[in-house]
């Protein structure tokens, strides 16, 4: 996936993130289908308005005038390589799944669940082996990914072990 921070990211406060996350799909999907799929997602995260054929997707980096400091002078975008280069959206299945079912599955998520792809993939890059990314960055990313999945839930020793 390719991420690109929004123009306002980090300008007014650094406790929030605003970004455009681009994904490649394993098959073409129509805007109407994506809108239906988005209805089953958290509206605060997946805005169905972007699934429109003529909706502009602004891609240019912002300009900072005199006296304004770019909070990301080096880079405000990047490519994150995932286990799968393309996302498989099971749009029909997701459209039929209720919000309650999705919420329930979220609450029972654990580290061994195959759906926690981000966490597992990040941990796989931990270390100085071939393809490894060292220790600090993967650990920080893995923690962020985990926290985003389970929030403040206490991690059991069984899962750690």
């Amino acid at each position, binding site marked *: 996936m*390719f*991420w690109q*921070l*929004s123009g306002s*990211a*980090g300008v007014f406060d*650094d*406790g*929030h*993130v*605003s*970004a*455009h*996350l*681009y*994904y*490649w*799909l*394993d098959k*073409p*999907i*129509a*805007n*109407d289908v*994506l809108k239906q799929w988005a209805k089953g*997602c958290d509206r*605060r*995260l*997946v*805005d169905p308005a*972007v699934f429109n*054929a*003529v*909706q*502009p*997707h*602004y*891609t*240019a*980096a912002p300009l900072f005038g005199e006296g304004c400091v770019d*909070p*990301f002078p080096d880079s*405000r975008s990047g*490519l994150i390589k995932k286990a799968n280069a*393309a*996302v*498989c959206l099971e749009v029909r299945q*997701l459209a039929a799944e209720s919000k309650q079912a999705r919420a329930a599955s979220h609450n029972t998520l654990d580290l061994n669940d195959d759906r*926690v*792809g*981000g*966490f597992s993939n990040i941990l796989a890059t931990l270390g100085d082996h071939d393809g490894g990314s060292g220790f600090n*960055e993967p650990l*920080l*990313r893995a923690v*962020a*990914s985990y*926290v*985003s*999945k389970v929030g403040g839930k206490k991690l059991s020793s069984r899962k750690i072990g």
Partner: protein
Amino acid sequence: MPAYFSYEYRAVDGIEEFASLLTELEQDRSRFIIRGQLADDVDAETPMRRRLYRNDRSEPIESPFLDVSTTWVMIDIDKLALPRGMSVREDTLASVEYAIGILPAEF
């Protein structure tokens, strides 16, 4: 925003080529991308409106874009609160990873 736009088609195959294109476009404030596809009867060299195709259009350039299936999506994360102690300036990649982790499991 202008009423008429110039048009350019760029073919990409896969996330890496798409990422290269998006990185290139970061340097050009006059361009953006859309999901639509130009209808066959529209002259790509003529400035056109950013409107969906209509059968009853007066001129092809007035409603030139077809609503087609595409192989990419953009998820717009807007002011997502980070966990206490995390800074988007200091922990940029972790902040992005946090946002990704909140998306539906497919992502």
